[in-house]
């Protein structure tokens, strides 16, 4: 089955797809996630960047062996039809739960800061409508949306200026002041924040210049890593260790340090702009989930799967279970995300073993 009718993604699309999907809600609480390392967390994002680059290399290498197939097809080719399908279903579920997790996280944030007296049902519905609209435009529409998002939201960096002024650079010292346990904890908690680049496994077939896809994706990843690095660095300067640990959305509190005479709560501007970032990462995940469903059902050019996915997401967000269960579910989907990052390495091994049988 030829899954690509046309290659549509140029290099800018590739850069900003990788970049924008990575910045979701993760970066908002990144300093808190890394707080087990205290002040030493500053350089963790750079380490994450290195790990991301290495795993990206494995992904692109694998994709380049199957230039016209996405991961769903690769699973079927390499693992056999039934095992492949089973894995695909798992991936689809993971994507749906993961998207629901991101949205729910953001809505929780909205509810605790901006709209305290309102239920979130209506905002979630509006959000999902927008989501359906963007996803039904296909991957190119998502890529364009990601570009727009980047240029609209990058301006909020300016709001951290007061925090830099007030911050104390001596917090960066001493370097490497952590125990292996703290390091492991931070790695485990923090790496979620930069997940998202692994979706290249799914949109790779649509890239025009596949030979340079690695380089372009890498640029996107490092833009995000750099933003994460700035965020953690400023937080470390501005907060005490207790605050790093206890302030849930520390980045919004950084905005709060702002001193405009005409705006009291700059953080509200931050939150509202953030919806674009959330949309750009969730749309990509939902698009991938929809593609997965397409390959499973072997049906094309129909949008009802998308509505069903959106509905499932809605149910997951509004489900009448305790918050604890929800948290656990989203956590589990996050850890599944880690599996997905290493999955290509596993597939590469199988590819090498079964090279002759699966040659395209």
């Amino acid at each position, binding site marked *: 089955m030829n899954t690509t009718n046309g290659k549509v993604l140029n290099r800018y699309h590739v850069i900003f797809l990788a970049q924008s999907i990575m910045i979701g809600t993760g970066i908002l609480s990144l300093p808190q996630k890394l707080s087990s390392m205290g002040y030493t967390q500053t350089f963790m994002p750079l380490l994450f960047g290195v790990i991301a680059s290495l795993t990206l290399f494995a992904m692109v290498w694998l994709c380049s062996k199957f230039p016209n197939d996405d991961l769903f097809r690769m699973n079927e080719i390499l693992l056999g039809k039934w095992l492949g399908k089973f894995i695909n279903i798992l991936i689809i579920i993971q994507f749906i739960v993961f998207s629901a997790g991101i949205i729910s996280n953001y809505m929780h944030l909205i509810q*605790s800061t901006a709209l305290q007296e309102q239920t979130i049902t209506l905002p979630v519905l509006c959000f999902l409508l927008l989501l359906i609209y963007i996803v039904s435009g296909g991957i190119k529409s998502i890529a364009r949306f990601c570009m727009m998002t980047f240029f609209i939201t990058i301006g909020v960096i300016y709001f951290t200026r007061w925090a830099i002024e007030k911050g104390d650079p001596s917090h960066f010292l*001493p370097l490497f002041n952590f125990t292996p346990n703290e390091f492991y904890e931070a790695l485990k908690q923090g790496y979620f924040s930069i997940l998202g680049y692994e979706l290249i496994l799914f949109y790779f077939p649509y890239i025009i210049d596949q030979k340079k896809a690695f380089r372009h994706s890498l640029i996107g990843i490092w833009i995000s890593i750099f933003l994460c690095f700035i965020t953690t660095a400023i937080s470390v300067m501005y907060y005490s*260790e207790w605050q790093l640990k206890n302030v849930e959305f520390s980045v919004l509190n950084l905005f709060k340090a702002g001193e405009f005479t005409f705006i*009291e709560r700059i953080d509200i501007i931050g939150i509202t702009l953030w919806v674009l970032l959330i949309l750009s990462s969730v749309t990509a995940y939902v698009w991938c989930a929809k593609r997965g469903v397409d390959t499973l059902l072997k049906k094309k050019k129909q949008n009802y799967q998308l509505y069903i996915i959106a509905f499932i997401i809605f149910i997951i967000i509004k489900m009448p279970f305790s918050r604890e269960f929800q948290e656990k579910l989203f956590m589990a989907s996050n850890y599944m995300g880690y599996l997905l990052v290493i999955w290509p390495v596993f597939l590469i091994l199988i590819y090498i073993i079964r090279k002759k049988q699966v040659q395209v």
Partner: protein
Amino acid sequence: MKHKQLCIISFLILVLLAGCSKKEIKVPLEDVGMVDSMAFDYIDENQMRLTVAIPQYSPDAEKDTQTFSITTDLVSSGIVEIEKQSDKKIVFNQLRVVLVNEDFARKGNVRKIIQHLYRNAEVGNKVLIAVVKDNAEAILKGDYPDKPSINFYLNNLLEPSINTAFNPNTNIHDFMYSITNPVIDTVLPYVEKRGEKLEIKGVAIFKGNHMHELIKPEEALVIQALSGRKNLAPLHLDLNAGHGEEKVMIDLIESSVKKESNKNMESPKLTIFLKIKGTLSEYKGEREYQLFTVESISDLEKDVNKQLEQDIGGFLERLNKTEVDPAGLSEEFRMYHHGKWTTKKTRELIGKLDVNVRVETSIISTGTLK
């Protein structure tokens, strides 16, 4: 055709389902009472007296500020009580100033109430906090005939200005930052009511969670200079350097500070280099008619340096004896210390810290008269 049907159906659904929606309780702006200042007074360990001031914008209101006081054990239950008395919904979006009285600062749990406000998303981070002598409630309820309202008055008084640059202008973030940070002890401005006027009398220094002592504005200025503030208040000095009694007033223009530690926890030594630049605005004493040449000015500079080194050194020694560190001097040691830093370490370190102060004054002008 299909689209038309879809449109009609969704329109019908929207219209019909509108009846199912819950009536949302939204409070119109006129019915919102925006708390501008809060005051906490100490009663005993479990009880406190909470006072809130709400500005009234109606031109018919005779008094421009409405105040409510309540005795309560929790902040939020106090607010609920106040809402019962008030005709309006109480919100904190416009909160500007929080006052605690001295008793509260010394015995009560200031951290708990500030943390409560810090947690509240409605409250901005720029709410100023101050300690008040005697009764905080009386300050909010007091009459200030020459001021538009107590809220503006308090806020303007506590805001940074060059003449009160000794005032640490502690806001909620600063408070939480310093009280949770093991290397710094919290400082808060200390306000006293005198008749119809309020005055910042000095600075309250905390040790841990409780107020420890009150220091004078001149000393507080030293803390501000050492913690790196660039623009400082005018500096008044009494010199006694072989020229009889002299009085010098220097308008400080800029200051910069550099600290160097010997990185040794056992016998800690800290050298502080303080550079100040300023204008000599007034001088009274023997040398009054000699201060025209560069040499005489530089002589004066040297004397000022000596005097300042002595004053600052003495002040820091006094602080070190009581093991408080409002200027965050132990940060210089934490920077090089591997492992967890605790408040206990700060106390130990500051107790045996040997401080060496080097001041470099430069008087850049003596005004426009020759």
